[in-house]
């Protein structure tokens, strides 16, 4: 119990110390996870919409694969990517291993199935009448898709939020491909894992609290956007 209270106390002290190292770590976390989420969204939304709205052979199989990959163990993704990016691996010449870029790739792989699969569900959930109506009104397939996605925006934003949760909390993959190098690839979660290893439980817990706090602020912001979307529909 003392450790818990000490953890909270330390978390507050940490934040208000404005420690340069800590802010560097927080900034890198946001940069890596933010880039990964953006790329995953950029690829996952069209893909999810496609799977949700088009019928094509093997569609059910694709959906099952997506759903399975939502539960990809990060360590496995990390190891797989390590072998690919390693100097002996097929993409070794890029020299990406142990760089922030490799971490972005790892987290993109982890977030993509979540964004795509949940976006697919959101799109499927939209009342078929809307599709029919806009088609009868002479809309092209592309603008039908846009209309449906607009309709599904609450669910789509939920998909992005779920993807964000996945990448911000993830440690297994980025530890392997990033290497937790001080001042270069060390992020919040890998720092927490390392400090736990060192036995600095209070510091690790404090960092965990800081991480949760940041996630909360970002989620509050996203929720405001999400709510505004729904009010817009009602109006």
């Amino acid at each position, binding site marked *: 119990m003392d450790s818990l209270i000490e953890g909270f106390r330390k978390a507050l002290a940490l934040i208000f110390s404005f420690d340069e190292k800590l802010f560097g770590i927080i900034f890198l976390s946001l940069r890596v996870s933010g880039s990964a989420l953006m790329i995953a969204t950029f*690829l996952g939304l069209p893909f999810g919409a496609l799977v949700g709205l088009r019928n094509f052979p093997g569609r059910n199989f694709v959906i099952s694969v997506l759903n399975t990959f939502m539960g990809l163990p990060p360590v496995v993704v990390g190891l797989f990517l390590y072998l690919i990016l390693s*100097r002996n691996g097929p993409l070794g010449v890029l020299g990406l291993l142990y*760089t*922030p870029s490799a971490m*972005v790739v790892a987290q993109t792989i982890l977030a993509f199935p979540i964004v795509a699969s949940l976006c697919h569900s959101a799109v499927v959930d939209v009342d078929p009448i809307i599709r029919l109506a806009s088609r009868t009104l002479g809309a092209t397939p592309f603008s039908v898709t846009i209309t449906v996605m607009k309709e599904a925006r609450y669910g789509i934003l939920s998909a992005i939020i779920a993807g964000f949760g996945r990448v911000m909390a993830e440690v297994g993959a980025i530890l392997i491909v990033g290497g937790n*190098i*001080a001042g270069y690839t060390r992020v919040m979660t890998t720092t927490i894992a390392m400090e736990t*290893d060192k036995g600095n*439980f209070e510091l690790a817990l404090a960092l965990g609290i800081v991480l949760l706090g940041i996630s909360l602020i970002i989620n509050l912001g996203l929720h405001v956007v999400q709510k505004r979307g729904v009010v817009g529909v009602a109006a």
Partner: protein
Amino acid sequence: MKNKSIFLLTAILFLMSVTSLFAETRIRCASTTSTQNSGLFDHILPIFEKKTGIKVDVVAVGTGAAIEIGKRGDADVVFVHAKDQELKAVEEGYFVNRHDVMYNDFVIVGPPDDPAKVKGLKSAPDAFRKIAESGIPFVSRGDKSGTHSKEMSLWNQTGIDPAGKEWYLEVGQGMAKTLRIANEKRAYTLTDRGTWLALKDIEKLDMTIVLEGDPVLFNQYGVMAVNPERHQHIKFKEAMMFINWLISSEGQQAIGSFKDAKGNRLFVPDASE
């Protein structure tokens, strides 16, 4: 549309990797978690970086993984503590210029009441035999780390094969977690002194050293460069500057002057120049 975005992604990643090439000279050193967690690198690397302008990026993993990373050419230098494995990898041509750098030692720790009656023994294999006969739990790293290979060589000397025995717990985790588990299980374990000293007070481990000082518990650290003939991209010149600094009197002094927060000296420099 999708092709375009994949192209864009690759382009961005490529640019990011290219820009990092033009930054200051950095070399990558694969080392072990226990070395990093001791705080040694935080003490010695700034001295080296200030002197040479070469930034050393440490990737801390288990000894087995560190050597593997070096073999694959994903690091320039490997700094670990498993002399037999190191020499074997040098013989196989993966590494060159291996040097002894420093040592610390292993100790056998266990419950303070010492239920297997190990205290008073002088030899580590004898202690292991006694623990095996008593049936008191023994927690093994089980992760192919330097500590684990030392443990296996000790079991080898006793002629006992502990694998699969009810009292033998293989956890496959780092030293700190292994100590934590041994503490909870009232078990014995083999640990490096650095991790033990760092952890026993802050985590209030209810354990004690039951055997120390046997020369077989000597834990030699070595450094070696990845063979540039196998991997052309290796920064061999900078890697050798680092190795030569570590074994120079200046580097050795830096290692010797490192103390943990409690003032314990954790490593004894022993490079023979």
